[in-house]
């Protein structure tokens, strides 16, 4: 009985980590599209997102089955709840990567601003790194690492503020830049949301280890 449960949880761990890597790839590719306007890659990101969505559905279905059939409790149950909840977070990160891609395509080649784009690329690389690190923390079941990753979300917020300042300043100076500037703001907001979802995953890793549902991240009013 126990062996079956352990095998099933192990498989779910692998599937979850794989989904995490695919989502991380989506962010990486979205950054690439943003930098180079590679429309072929943009199409690929959108197509891959269907696979990410399917992964989430698969993980939800399998987790529900394991809960119903094996009736896990205590630490096993916490692991499964984490997979169930954190897979939704990963799926949302995938959606934000797609939205960044769409915005990048809309920006086109007119009125681009290198300085703001550099900030956005750095921001994108930052949240990508956050995601990679949180997947590693998940695989290692490392609560301390997860908490550290959540702390770095303040960096995403700083990037977003910088993008806002730069874009608004440029929009005020040059009204023909408003359309592109708005897209930059949209991209920044999507990337910032990715940081928030990575923080959610960190919170679930803490839950797996302690049973406590906590609020991490720089904006939390009741950090634990």
């Amino acid at each position, binding site marked *: *009985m*126990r062996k079956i*449960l352990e095998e099933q949880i192990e498989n779910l761990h692998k599937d979850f980590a794989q989904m995490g890597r695919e989502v991380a790839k989506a962010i990486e590719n979205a950054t690439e599209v943003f930098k180079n306007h590679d429309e072929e890659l943009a199409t690929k990101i959108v197509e891959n997102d269907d696979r990410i969505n399917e992964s989430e559905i698969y993980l939800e279905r399998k987790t529900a089955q394991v809960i119903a059939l094996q*009736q*896990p*409790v*205590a*630490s*096993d*149950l*916490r692991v499964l709840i984490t997979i169930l909840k954190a897979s939704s977070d990963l799926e949302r990160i995938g959606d934000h990567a797609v939205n960044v891609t769409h915005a990048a395509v809309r920006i086109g080649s007119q009125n681009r601003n290198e300085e703001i784009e550099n900030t956005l690329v750095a921001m994108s690389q930052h949240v990508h790194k956050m995601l990679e690190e949180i997947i590693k923390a998940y695989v290692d079941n490392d609560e301390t690492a997860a908490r550290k990753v959540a702390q770095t979300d303040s960096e995403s917020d700083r990037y977003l503020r910088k993008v806002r300042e730069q874009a608004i300043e440029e929009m005020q100076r040059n009204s023909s830049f408003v359309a592109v500037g708005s897209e930059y703001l949209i991209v920044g907001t999507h990337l910032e949301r990715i940081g928030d979802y990575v923080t959610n995953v960190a919170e679930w890793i803490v839950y797996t280890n*302690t*049973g406590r549902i906590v609020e991490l991240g720089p904006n939390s009013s009741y950090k634990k």
Partner: protein
Amino acid sequence: MSINKYDFNEKSILKFDPNEHEIAIETKNLQVYYGNNHALFDGNLQFERYKITSLIGASGSGKSTYLRSLNRMNDNVAKVDGQIMYRGLDVNTSKINVYEMRKHIGMVFQRPNPFSKSIRENITFALKEQGLKNKQKLNEIVEQSLRDAAIWDEVKDDLDKSAWSLSGGQQQRLCIARTIAMKPDILLLDEPASALDPISTSKIEETLVELKKRYTIIIVTHNMQQASRISDYTAFFHLGHILEYDKTKHIFTVPKVTATNDYISGNFG
């Protein structure tokens, strides 16, 4: 993995604040010996009134030994040291009238054991022995007890049929009715549903949840889901030691003791 790997000093035992929780019964430093075999060590548990408490643990962990000590079923079987405090009295002393005490602390066993008598007489037998002769009063108690044990509707037209004509699940509910006819304070149940099918089990569980409005219930069970479904508190026994006692919702989500986590997860032995 060896079942002996756990540290008996790694314990977490819930203590109630008497200002917030009414204690129905409490054991202090309870020790049980079968001859030279020390079967239960340091039983220190408090049971809250009008709650269901599950005692869980592997076979030989001491949970049934502990339960049976509570209403002195271990007399002449084992040596029981320590205090069992009930309404300010230590019932584990020779001064106590055990039969009188068992009217307050009743027991239902694993296998249904109705008397070889009619359904009605199963309820009235002990009451008549105590001198209750008023037929109307007896009928009232029969109906109320059977209703409380959620079996009245099934047997009300067959009260004079043999109790043995009932199914196992019905027999067990009759035994619960027989116990509560004595108006006990505390109901002890030793794996009351382990010999029953899932439907009968579910009826027993529903009955117990209903009964806790008026009784304090302590139940030994091997069925983890049963413990998690119906009990408010759970105590985990291991090799004669009580290692963890807490709210059931904590035991089954965030147990504090490694051995508890392993046992309830099936990662044991």
